[in-house]
Structures are given as structure tokens and as C-alpha cells.
């Protein structure tokens, strides 16, 4: 067998191995998406109950709460960036980070100092490579976030928002995550979570009007219990959406990779056949010309 043929065979074999790996990752991602979406669905009654209660309090009382008031004593702004732990998910982490960089520039233009909070190893290594300071990071389980992680992130950020300016308190909290719209469309999103903007009558259209509530023990106490829960629930939701998006992005990327591997295998198979044929033709012409030379002598 000629050297050229051997090289083609080698390429085909290694691409076949890669293809198997891509296919396996695609199937794994596909099987996990259902679970991730299921978790988002399970968390929604809670989010709905909290949102409804928050709007009920906001509609009927005019209570000021630390979490809804703008802070003027510091210009630090916290940004929480939700990325993946692993690559092989196409542009998933890259597009979140691009959106985060855009937000950072915008905040810096407004004269604010940005404090970075990152979840997911991809985001952490992105900022470490650029030698930017990360205030706190959480890694592991980006494709199936635990409720405890969300609570911990929520508590950390709420503490930062309520901390005095000299202890690294922040005046704003932005979250950059990927919203799961459908299996084929996931969009990076930026939301400002703190200070909360409680809009009157945020109850979704079509629901029955909110009744006049009695607050037990007082509107302030109810708000105190509600708002941190609301923040944590929004964060948990963001993590779940990001997890579903990550898996969908990975499935799509691996599907494309499998197809590309098939293309390469096909191409090299053709080239290998061609090389084999060329070798045979050459051998025949060598034999024929040799016997011709013998016959002529």
C-alpha cells in the first residue's frame, strides 16, 4: 500500500472516532434538555406566586424598601454572568461573554465601577486570562444548577447590595444569562435585578384583578420576606434557563460537528479510492512497458 493511501486511511479512522464522540455528546445533550426544561416548568408555580404577591403589595401600599431604593453612596455595579462549565456548545459561552463585555463598557461609560460575579468555568477562565478581578465565582453543575447554588448566589448578591460602600457594597445588580426561547433559538439577555423596579399592576394581563389584601403582620414585614425570595427565584430561573440553553446549544453544535465529520470521511474515502486506482494504473503501465521492452529486445 502506498504512503498516500495510508495517510488517507489514518485520517478516515481518526475522523470516525471523533464522529462517534460527537454523536454521543449530541445524544447526551438531547436527553438532558427535557429534564432541564422540566425543572424550569416545576419552578414556575413558585415564581408566579411570588410575583403575584409582590405586585399585590406594590399595588396596595406605598412602602419604601431598601431593595427598591436607588443607592447613591457608591458607583459600584455588580454584574452576574452565567456561562457554561464545558465547551463544545458552539457560540453559547462566547455570546454571553460578548453581551457581558458590552454591558461592562456601557456601565464604565456611565462612570460606574464593575464588580464581576461569574458562574461557569468558561466565564471564569475568560476573565482570568484577561487578568480581570472576579469578586466571586461558582463552578460545577452549570447544566443542572442546584437550588442551593441559586440560594447562595442570591444571598451573596443581596449581601453585597446591602453592604456599606466601603465594604464593597454595590448600587446595582445586572444579570447576563441566556434565555431559552426554543430548541433552535437562545438569546443572551441582560436584566437589571437590583434595585427592584416594582411597577404598579405588574400582574399579567388576563388574570383576575388583585383583591384588597390584609397584611400579616405588616406590609413592611411581608415585603421583607417577599423581596429576597423574589430575587432568589429570578436568579434560579435565570440559571435554569441558561442550563436549558447550554444543552440546546451543545446539541446543535454536536449535530453540526457530526455532519462535518461525515463530510470529511466521505471526502477522504474518495481521495483514498483515487490514490489506490492511480497506484494500480501505474503498476499496470509499468508491467506492460516492461514486457514491451523485453519483447522488443
Amino acid at each position, binding site marked *: 500500500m502506498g504512503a498516500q493511501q495510508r495517510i488517507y486511511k489514518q485520517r478516515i479512522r481518526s475522523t470516525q472516532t471523533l464522529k462517534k464522540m460527537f454523536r454521543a455528546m449530541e445524544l447526551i445533550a438531547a436527553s438532558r434538555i427535557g*429534564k432541564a426544561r422540566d*425543572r424550569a416548568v*416545576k*419552578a414556575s*408555580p*413558585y415564581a408566579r*406566586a*411570588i410575583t*403575584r*404577591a409582590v405586585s*399585590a*403589595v406594590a399595588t396596595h401600599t406605598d412602602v419604601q424598601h431598601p431593595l427598591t431604593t436607588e443607592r447613591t453612596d457608591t458607583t459600584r455595579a455588580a454584574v452576574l454572568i452565567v456561562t457554561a462549565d464545558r465547551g463544545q456548545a458552539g457560540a453559547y459561552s462566547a455570546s454571553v461573554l460578548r453581551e457581558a463585555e458590552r454591558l461592562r463598557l456601557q456601565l464604565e461609560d456611565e462612570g460606574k465601577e464593575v464588580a464581576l460575579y461569574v458562574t461557569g468555568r468558561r466565564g471564569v477562565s475568560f476573565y482570568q486570562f484577561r487578568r480581570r478581578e472576579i469578586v466571586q465565582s461558582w463552578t460545577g453543575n452549570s447544566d443542572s444548577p442546584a*437550588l442551593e447554588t*441559586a*440560594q447562595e448566589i442570591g444571598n451573596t448578591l443581596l449581601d453585597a447590595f446591602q453592604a456599606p460602600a466601603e465594604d464593597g457594597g454595590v448600587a446595582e445588580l445586572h444579570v447576563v444569562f441566556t434565555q431559552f426561547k426554543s430548541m433552535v433559538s437562545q438569546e443572551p439577555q441582560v436584566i437589571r435585578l437590583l434595585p427592584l423596579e416594582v411597577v404598579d399592576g405588574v400582574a399579567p394581563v388576563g388574570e383576575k384583578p*388583585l*383583591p*384588597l*389584601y*390584609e*397584611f*400579616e*403582620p405588616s406590609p413592611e*414585614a*411581608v415585603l*421583607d*420576606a*417577599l423581596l429576597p*425570595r423574589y430575587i*432568589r*427565584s429570578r436568579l*434560579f430561573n435565570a440559571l435554569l434557563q441558561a442550563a436549558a440553553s447550554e444543552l440546546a446549544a451543545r446539541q446543535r453544535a454536536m449535530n453540526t460537528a457530526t455532519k462535518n465529520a461525515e463530510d470529511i470521511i466521505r471526502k477522504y474515502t474518495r481521495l483514498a479510492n483515487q490514490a489506490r486506482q492511480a497506484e494500480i494504473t501505474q503498476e499496470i503501465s509499468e508491467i506492460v512497458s516492461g514486457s514491451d521492452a523485453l519483447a522488443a529486445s
Partner: protein
Amino acid sequence: MPLKVEMVSADRTWWSGEAQSVGAPAADGDLGILPGHQPVLAVLRPGTVRVRPSGGEPVTMDISGGFLSVDSDDVTIVVDPTTSEDPAGTVEN
């Protein structure tokens, strides 16, 4: 007319269905809810929530906090569970 009760925590629904009465540990005294209760939003302290369904055994759950809203016989109890174990025994994956 029975109460429509939904008991939820951040990641799942613990119990939902129709009930005759609900008892919950509100911040300054236990709160009993019967059909026709006026709308209320209450903060809960650690304790036990008791739901008496229209049929079957009473449901109880230990909580470490939460809140409760009543709105024309729709009762929503948001709980912070003390355990992550499911009362129905179906472990969530």
C-alpha cells in the same frame, strides 16, 4: 365551596388540590383558613402547615419559613421546606 390549595417551594409543587381548611403558623399567631376567608398575605414562621383535604388524610409539613396568600378561596402557601424529601416519596431527579 372548598379551598383551592397550592403548596409550593422554589423547585417544585409539594401539594395541590381542594381542601376544607388550612392551618399555618403566621408570624404573630397561628392562622386558620376556612372557605370565605378575607384576602390576606401572611409571613410564616417555622412550624407546621396543616392542610385538611376534602377527602383523605390530613397533610402536614414542617417548614422553616415562608408565606401564605389567600385570595377568594385560592390559597397559595410558599414554603421553605425543612427537608428535601418528598412527602409522596417520589424523589425528584
